[in-house]
């Protein structure tokens, strides 16, 4: 691995640019290197690992039992990368991807992408024949009253603090929501010495019944043993309250307590931290901004990029691997990363189709095996409408622009709003610096509710570059063709 800390040392051209150094990106990079592709692995974080293997090379939490064996499995991926000659650049944002044009404005042959990179305030354009987006997942943002108060975080955020800095919440901590990470984190934090005063599980009764047909499949899966152990353990060692609803976090400047409905009884627990978790969904911002087609995946209740059997998106030359192309967990992400790299090598003519097929056959089998049990997990933790459509009118939906649920419902109704892009024009929902990452999935729920249509009919936010904010100066430093000058100076 060739670690590049200065953006000017990044080469002008690569066969392959991989975005994101989580399991999919790490595996894709090592595989691409094996297959002879010149490869750049660009990642936003300080060190490789993504979120699941966050800080795996630098974590101060060295005792393996604390973060668990599933975490330390990531080390092998980093070691594979370290053995390669892949260019790896940390703290680097990919902010634009366009087809590369020649001076006359025509597509160059063979086709290349012009990839905009930004690192510590400096931007560059480089060229790549192909891209693999390995941008992973985000925690599903589920607005509850008070979720913007300091002291409220996602469960994943607390885990990141633990992994990367060995930090645990101090004071009375509540973990609330629904999803596979809920118990895992509660258990992990408790073992790390946190004071977990309650775990509020909001998974409704009906979900388990609905998931039952998938139970047999789950019991044969790689998750089963671990999941069941955790479940059994939680009964004795964690202060669980199951099937609660109506979460509402209360405080003036920071969290003071959480109110909830405990099977018909209103309760309230004083606390210093609330860690929310509602499952994870694909992080689609980059795919969407690049024009990759999305489809509504009802199994996880989220927009997801369309990919073919070779993990290529609807935009030729752009592959998507890992949870960003559908949630299936870290081991599956790594397998899919490898597959995407093999597909890229074949598309670039470095291996023939027969080798591609031979190489990917065992990987496809692995992917299928690793997908076992997902259907049960997805169904069990599928969010229900009451969770996603907050009834408290003052609930903030768009955190950046501080737009509340009632404002959205009113404007959708009064002005007959059809979709999130029209709503954005009226209320600025999705116009802030997070570029709709935190509100995009909730806005469409409220529009669907008011219009009385399924969510997928409402559509999704139309995204544009920069995929992450960069400075005006960085944009000004990009190459300016004569045609570009003529378009502005008249």
């Amino acid at each position, binding site marked *: 691995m060739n670690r590049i800390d200065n953006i000017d040392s990044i080469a002008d051209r690569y066969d392959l640019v991989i975005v994101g150094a989580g399991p999919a990106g790490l595996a894709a990079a090592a595989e691409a290197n094996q297959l002879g592709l010149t490869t750049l692995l660009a990642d936003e974080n300080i060190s490789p690992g993504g979120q699941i293997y966050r800080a795996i090379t630098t974590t101060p939490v060295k005792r393996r039992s604390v973060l668990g064996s599933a975490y330390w499995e990531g080390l092998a991926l980093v070691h594979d990368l370290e053995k390669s000659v892949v260019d790896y650049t940390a703290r680097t944002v990919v902010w634009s991807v366009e087809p590369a044009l020649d001076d006359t404005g025509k597509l160059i042959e063979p086709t290349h992408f012009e990839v905009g990179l930004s690192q510590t305030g400096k931007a560059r354009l480089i060229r790549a024949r192909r891209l693999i987006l390995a941008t992973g997942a985000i925690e599903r943002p589920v607005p509850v009253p008070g979720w913007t108060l300091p002291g409220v975080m996602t469960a994943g955020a607390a885990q990141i603090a633990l992994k990367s800095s060995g930090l645990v919440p101090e004071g009375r901590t509540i973990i609330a929501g629904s999803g596979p990470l809920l118990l895992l984190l509660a258990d992990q934090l408790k073992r790390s010495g946190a004071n977990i005063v309650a775990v509020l599980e909001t998974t409704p009764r009906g979900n388990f019944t609905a998931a039952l047909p998938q139970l047999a499949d789950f019991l044969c899966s790689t998750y089963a043993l671990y999941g069941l152990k955790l479940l059994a353990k939680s009964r004795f060692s964690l202060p669980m309250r199951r099937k609660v609803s109506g979460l509402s976090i209360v405080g003036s400047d920071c969290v003071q307590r959480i109110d909830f409905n405990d099977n018909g009884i209103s309760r309230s627990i004083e606390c210093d931290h609330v860690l929310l978790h509602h499952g994870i969904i694909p992080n689609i911002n980059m795919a969407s901004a690049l024009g990759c087609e999305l489809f509504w995946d009802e199994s996880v209740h989220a927009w997801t990029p369309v990919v073919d059997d070779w993990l290529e998106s609807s935009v030729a030359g752009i592959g998507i691997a890992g949870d960003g192309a559908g949630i299936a967990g870290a081991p599956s992400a790594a397998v899919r990363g490898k597959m995407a790299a093999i597909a890229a090598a074949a598309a670039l003519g470095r291996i023939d189709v027969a080798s591609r097929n031979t190489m990917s056959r065992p990987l496809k089998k692995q992917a299928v095996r690793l997908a076992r049990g997902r259907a049960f997990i997805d169904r069990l933790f599928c969010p229900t409408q009451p969770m996603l459509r907050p009834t408290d009118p003052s609930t903030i939906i768009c955190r950046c622009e501080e737009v509340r649920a009632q404002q959205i419902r009113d404007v959708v109704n009064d002005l007959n709003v059809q979709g999130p892009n029209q709503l954005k024009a009226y209320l600025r929902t999705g116009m802030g*610096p997070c570029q709709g990452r935190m509100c995009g999935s909730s806005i469409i729920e409220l529009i669907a509710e008011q219009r009385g249509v399924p969510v997928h009919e409402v559509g999704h936010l139309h995204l544009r570059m920069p995929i992450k904010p960069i400075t005006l100066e960085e944009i000004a430093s990009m190459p300016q063709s004569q045609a570009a000058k003529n378009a502005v100076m008249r």
Partner: protein
Amino acid sequence: MFRPISRQLSQATDQPSNPLDLIIEFTFDGRLMRARNGDTLAASLLANGVNAFRRTSISGTERGPYCLMGVCFDCLVVVDGIGNRQACLTPVRQGMVVEPQRGARTVDALENTDQ
């Protein structure tokens, strides 16, 4: 507020001391703070008992980090005069001067950076 996990839980036996555990100093809102070299600014602030990093530009209410992975833009601070930096993606450095992001970026803050 966050605190470091106990040494007994973090250290594997016979582990040599980690060079990343070197302590550096920075200031936040004029207060001197100590941090573990290699941490993000967001983690360092949390470890120093700071929950609220900024005030919003619309209602002026306090916010702190929510996702710690670069997505939510709620951990924005002013770093060495440059506003709206994501603390969760910024490594803490010796001598860093950090201020809460109080509302929108100001012209004054921008002026300091004009050369």
